[in-house]
């Protein structure tokens, strides 16, 4: 790490841009200390949430109050981390997701008898990994960030140790994630063997002039990295772990797994494709197209007959990442914008859907409330939660006036711009099939059974922060669908370097 010291450390501007990462790291140490002093669920959760908010503060001011103060962007902090508008946008998104997960965890863990405090520690660690991943411009920081992102997730997925399925989910995720990491490492080694560098930009600078057998080794290395990333994003045919892990993991952890961890990896994939000029390898783009089509087909078809809401959302997330890949393949500035908008809408929607599942469930109720049967006639018991879930499902289906429509619109625009008709046909067909199972689930919510009493269960506002958060997410979904301009402006401002 001699490069750190040759110039006598970091400049003040670099320290300031690193603030979110530094504050989050400090929070982790602080929470560790706080747990050691006293196990207290509310206190430890509050400290974690406060730390996340503090880390979010500079990003919030930068994006929403630019007349007050802005981060001195872009900064290259050592060759490892590059903090630009793009990174800041995704950092903010991951931090907000972590905040939502923390509030959901608080509502969920209240009913848990074991140690509840470490879930926040793991969540913060994983979030830190996500921040590093979206800032990374170098294979070393990419790998460190990716491991920091996924290793705490094993613990989180298996957090309810006494429950067979939770433990199974944790173990499965551990094994498959380790395999994916091994693929990524080997791919990096292959690329390094030909390039002699690990920095994305330097790889991109040289990739055009390299030919012959060296080029094929680089293509092979990139393909192996793609396999690893496919595992993390659960693209078909690397999707087999997804439904089991989603089902077994505690509901708030599933929401984090489905949003923050995938967002971080996807943001990195786009950056790698743009900076390392992976577009110049047509074979790689073809593979990506195949992955996209397979993901759309498998995700939607496998979700058709699901009776388990968590598994259904897992398959739907596979399909959604297939749609997202179409935007990546389209390439160009519009693609980066489309990915940003789509990820934003997806994250908001998925968080809301899993938020409702979380608020419906509690650990040691044997299992989470995940069977669609549990939700039958929910409207007659919990109308507010049902309304939120309805909007989330509509948004996932991409119905106009919800967030999902804007995202899908962007993907189709990006694809049509580059004449990717085959991929667009898959998107359209997939959406049509998707509509069936989203609506099928929705109908269940409103079925009036004879035995279902017509009363509104008291919304326990001890789960209040979680409830308020879900309501906010629903408003965000509608706002994104009806008046998306400010959000689009935000994404446009956060272009790559």
């Amino acid at each position, binding site marked *: 790490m001699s490069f750190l010291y040759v110039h006598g450390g970091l400049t003040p501007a670099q320290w300031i841009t690193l603030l979110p990462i530094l504050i989050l790291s400090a929070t982790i140490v602080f929470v560790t200390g706080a747990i050691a002093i006293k196990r207290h669920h509310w206190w430890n959760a509050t400290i974690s949430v406060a730390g996340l908010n503090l880390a979010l503060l500079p990003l919030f001011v930068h994006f929403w109050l630019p007349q007050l103060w802005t981060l001195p962007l872009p900064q290259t902090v050592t060759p490892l981390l590059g903090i630009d508008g793009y990174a800041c946008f995704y950092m903010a998104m991951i931090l907000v997701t972590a905040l939502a997960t923390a509030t959901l965890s608080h509502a969920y863990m209240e009913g848990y008898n074991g140690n509840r405090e470490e879930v926040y520690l793991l969540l913060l660690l994983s979030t830190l990994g996500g921040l590093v991943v979206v800032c990374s411009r170098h294979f070393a920081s990419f790998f460190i960030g990716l491991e920091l992102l996924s290793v705490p997730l094993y613990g989180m997925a298996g957090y*309810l140790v006494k429950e067979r399925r939770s433990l199974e989910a944790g173990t499965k995720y551990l094994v498959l994630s380790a395999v994916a990491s091994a693929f990524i490492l080997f791919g990096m080694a292959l690329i390094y063997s030909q390039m002699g560098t690990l920095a994305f930009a330097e790889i991109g600078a040289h990739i055009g002039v390299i030919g012959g057998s060296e080029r094929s080794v680089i293509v092979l290395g990139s393909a192996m990295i793609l396999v690893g990333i496919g595992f993390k994003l659960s693209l078909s045919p690397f999707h087999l772990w997804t439904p089991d892990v989603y089902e077994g993991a505690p509901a708030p952890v599933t929401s984090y797994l489905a949003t923050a961890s995938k967002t971080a990896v996807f943001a990195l994939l786009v950056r790698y494709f743009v900076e390392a000029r992976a577009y110049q390898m047509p074979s790689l783009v073809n593979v990506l197209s195949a992955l996209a089509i397979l993901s759309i087909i498998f995700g939607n078809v496998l979700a058709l007959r699901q009776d388990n809401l968590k598994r259904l959302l897992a398959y739907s997330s596979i399909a959604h990442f297939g749609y997202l890949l179409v935007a990546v393949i389209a390439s160009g500035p519009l693609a980066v914008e489309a990915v940003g908008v789509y990820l934003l809408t997806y994250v908001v929607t998925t968080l809301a859907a899993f938020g409702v599942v979380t608020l419906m469930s509690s650990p040691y109720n044997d299992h989470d409330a995940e069977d669609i049967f549990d939700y039958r006639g929910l409207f007659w018991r919990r109308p507010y939660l049902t309304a939120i879930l309805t909007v989330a499902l509509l948004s996932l289906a991409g119905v106009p006036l919800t967030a999902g429509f804007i995202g899908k619109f962007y993907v189709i625009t990006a694809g049509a711009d580059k004449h990717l008709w085959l991929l667009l046909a898959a998107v359209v067909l997939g959406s049509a099939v998707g509509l069936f199972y989203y609506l099928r689930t929705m109908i269940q919510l409103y079925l009036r059974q004879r035995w279902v009493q017509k009363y509104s269960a008291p919304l326990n506002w001890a789960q209040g922060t979680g409830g308020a958060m879900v309501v906010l997410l629903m408003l965000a979904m509608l706002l994104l669908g009806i008046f998306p301009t400010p959000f689009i402006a935000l994404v446009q401002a956060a272009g790559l370097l």
Partner: protein
Amino acid sequence: MPSLIAQNWAFGIYVAATLAIVFLMLGLSYVLGGRARGRAKNDPFESGVVSPGSGHLRISAKFYLVAMFFVIFDLEAVFLYAWAVSIRQTGWVGFMEVLVFVAVLLIGLVYIWRLGGLDWAPLSRTQRSRSLPTLYRDPASAPQPKPQA
């Protein structure tokens, strides 16, 4: 191809001869040797002593914990060596960096100490006070929190 055989025939014969000797020795002792059967004769046993009891010992999980802590802190110490060899080049910035590193480790140590990770005797012998936080609380045996409606 013929040249390949010409170069390697000696090695081939060597391998064949080795295999032949092994099979000869094992085969002859199988054919000529005596056989005895007995109650414990087919068990694996050491130095002619029949082992009492089963080999499936139950080792306290604490040993696992101790091993894990050892590996963690041992690995962290390795990073200090990397600093030690470059102490002059890294200067004060490196010193501050290591200070932060060690401080974080220290917090980690306090964490596992307070949670009883360093109490290697079984719980009943140490009589930890109930007010201290614990490393692992069995959800099944813990007192039920007030139910959520």
